[in-house]
């Protein structure tokens, strides 16, 4: 009855070509869900994997196209490349598209690991039927029937979708929804390990509870930001911040609470405590995906929120980030020394790397076109960190004993002799993590440190290098274990992977060396991406 009186609601204006990579991934995910329903079980796994991988590949291609056309769509008035699309929900800008590219590449590598089926005798690393209690007859039955949860592919695709939107969200509401879109599938996938399912379920529960808890903080921060600025859009908030319209304390509380949610996702101290438990418990391919993808997406989102929305309050948040960076580096590096489990150790290393990334962030250096800025340094660091992390976790999947992956460090003794190339690759990743020159990790460290120093924080650089020395200690210990120590007893077996995992390891190792020797193109990409579009 009111219809006639109301003005019509005009349809939204969506730049489909710009956000096509997101749409492609969405399509792949939805298609995957349909495959789950329609394709017979025997062929489902292959089809699912193919859909996911093809979707990602298509998205990669499209992302490259989008990146190249960014200049064309550049509007006047802002310094960055790209534009805000979809009614202000997404900002398809240089850093954002580069992040898409990174996320897609990480996802591609991780999906290859997801699809690996040779290690478990023709079954994937995911449990056959999650509803069965571990060790129950049902579980054995499911294993015997060789059923698999092929849903991980659409789930992972949804997570990827969430990550991509998270990194490019231009309003806080979209960001929050994207945060949940990326988190929920990960919560689920953490609990799907085939082996050590008790740990896996526990990891899922912990990740879920803490994730939900921290995202509420983020949300409250969003609410306060809305209360401060009256809008969720980053650009509008930035205007409010620079014009100092609202109450400062409201702004500060908003910054703080949003930081909590974002720092949780990148596992910065003191919001890191979920990381080791979840990384250890989750199925290793998922850990790889999570470690590389979540951190990348969350970090870019963090940069976006802080540089775009709160750029006017830099002097308020920089000291705190400074301290968090130091504490994170310190704790991550230090505690990893005492770890005896490879996955936990990599988790703590991931915490330490969050600290190093924060160093680049704390520099808050905008830079000029020909100089390394905080954004470009962090993008580069994320690239090298993500690649090496996926490679390292890929190797973790191969070192096995009767109980599945042999993640206890003592089982890695003498690996260098048993399989020099595998151990050599792992050593390479460790050296890259440690920041030894001629590996990509070194260039990454250099980049974030130079961003910090350019921003005027040279003491942070000094602390950073000292912390890298501490961190190096445990990377070096792993090398000692693999190459200088003789195996205890039989030593673990090294499973022969299919071409999928082999490809991942080879590609990541090659990229680690390549980016160490010839970082120019990637740096160019990161630097050319320019600044965030407001």
């Amino acid at each position: 009855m009111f219809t006639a009186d109301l003005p019509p609601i005009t349809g939204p204006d969506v730049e489909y070509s710009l956000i096509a990579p997101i749409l492609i991934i969405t399509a792949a995910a939805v298609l995957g869900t349909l495959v789950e329903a329609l394709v017979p079980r025997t062929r489902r796994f292959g089809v699912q994997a193919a859909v996911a991988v093809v979707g990602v590949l298509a998205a990669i291609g499209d992302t490259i196209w989008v990146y190249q056309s960014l200049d064309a769509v550049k509007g006047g008035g802002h310094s960055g490349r790209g534009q805000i699309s979809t009614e202000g929900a997404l900002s398809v800008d240089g850093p954002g598209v580069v992040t898409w590219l990174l996320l897609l590449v990480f996802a591609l590598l991780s999906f290859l690991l997801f699809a690996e089926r040779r290690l478990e005798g023709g079954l994937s690393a995911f449990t056959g039927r999650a509803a069965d209690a571990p060790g129950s007859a049902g579980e054995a039955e499911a294993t015997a029937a060789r059923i698999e949860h092929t849903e991980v592919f659409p789930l992972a695709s949804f997570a990827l979708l969430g990550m991509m939107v998270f990194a490019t969200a231009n309003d806080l509401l979209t960001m929050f929804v994207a945060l949940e879109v990326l988190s929920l599938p990960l919560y689920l996938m953490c609990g799907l390990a085939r082996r050590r399912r008790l740990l896996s379920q526990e990891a899922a529960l912990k990740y879920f509870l803490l994730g939900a808890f921290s995202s509420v903080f983020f949300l409250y921060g969003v609410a306060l930001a809305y209360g401060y600025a009256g809008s969720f859009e980053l650009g509008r908030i930035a205007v409010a911040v620079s014009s100092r319209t609202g109450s400062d304390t409201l702004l500060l509380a908003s910054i703080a609470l949003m930081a909590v949610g974002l720092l949780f996702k990148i596992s910065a101290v003191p919001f890191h405590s979920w990381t080791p438990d979840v990384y250890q418990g989750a199925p290793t391919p998922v850990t790889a995906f999570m470690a590389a993808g979540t951190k990348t997406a969350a970090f870019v989102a963090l940069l976006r929120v802080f540089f775009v929305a709160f750029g006017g309050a830099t002097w308020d948040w920089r000291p705190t980030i400074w301290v968090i960076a130091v504490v994170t580096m310190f704790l991550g590096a230090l505690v990893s020394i005492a770890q005896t489990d490879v996955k936990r150790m990599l988790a703590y290393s991931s915490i330490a790397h969050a600290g190093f990334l924060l160093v680049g962030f704390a520099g808050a250096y905008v830079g000029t076109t020909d100089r390394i800025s905080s954004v470009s340094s962090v993008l580069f660091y994320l690239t090298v960190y993500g690649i090496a992390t996926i490679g390292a976790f890929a190797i973790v999947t191969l070192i096995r004993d009767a109980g599945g992956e042999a993640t206890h460090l003592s089982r890695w003794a003498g690996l260098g002799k048993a399989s020099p190339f595998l151990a050599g690759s792992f050593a390479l990743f460790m050296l890259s993590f440690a920041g030894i020159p001629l590996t990509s990790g070194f260039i990454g460290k250099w980049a974030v440190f130079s961003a910090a120093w350019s921003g005027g924080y040279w003491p942070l650089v000094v602390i950073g290098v000292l912390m890298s020395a501490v961190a190096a200690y445990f990377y070096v210990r792993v090398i000692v274990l693999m190459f200088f120590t003789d195996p205890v007893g039989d030593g673990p077996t090294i499973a022969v992977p299919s071409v999928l995992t082999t490809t991942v390891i080879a590609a990541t190792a090659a990229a680690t060396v390549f980016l160490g020797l010839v970082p120019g193109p990637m740096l160019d990409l990161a630097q050319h991406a320019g600044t965030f579009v407001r």
Partner: protein
Amino acid sequence: MTAFWILAPIMVLAALGLVLARKAVHAALCLAIVMISLAVLYAAQGAPFLFAVQIIVYTGAIMMLFLFVLMLVGVETSDSLVETIKGQRLMATVVGLLFGIVGVLVIGQAVTGAVTGLDEANANGNPYGIAKLLFGPYVLAFELTSALLITAAVGAMVLAHRERLVPRRSQADISRDRMREYAETGRHPGNPPTPGVFARHNAVDTPALLPDGRPMPESVSASLVARGQVRDGFDDDVDDIAKAIEPPPHAGWPFDQEGDDQ
């Protein structure tokens, strides 16, 4: 404003109830109170649409889901009052108090500026305004929620759904099988009597007695049989027990026995 001042204490108390109630169901009910009160506040704040959604979705659907799961895992479960993590409760209280105080003082008091009110925004009705935003700036988020819902559905399926691998065996199937087995191997389709039936003792190691007085070894657990711990359950046991109860005929005092040993 009146509604607020009535509802606010109720909500706080209910929230405290949620935290303090020992039984999960009580906690759930407390939460429901908060939610319904909130709905009222939404209405008071010019958000009729949310009022409805809060009641329907939150209180209706979500809380029901909670209660449903509570039923599933045991409605009677209640937390023990002993805190197992040292200092957790103290620290939680301290941090909570500080956070609350800071929040209330710094944030709550910081909200300044005139209240614009929603009259203008709600000019075409609250749902219209919301719809305009939903299909405007927030269309992407709106579409994203579909991904969320699919994820939730798939997730629930993955974790809770047991795919049936073998055809379901009905009672008819079972009885048919039993009879066939009886025909082929002679295995009795009925249950064997439990140990101790008609026997002198009803202990698990005593076989049941058949009506004809014969013991039935199958009634005793196979593992006891394997270990040879089965009593025969016949009258000679009585003598044994009598011996155990009564002292032996020429038993002396304990110290005499010692002397005898020498």
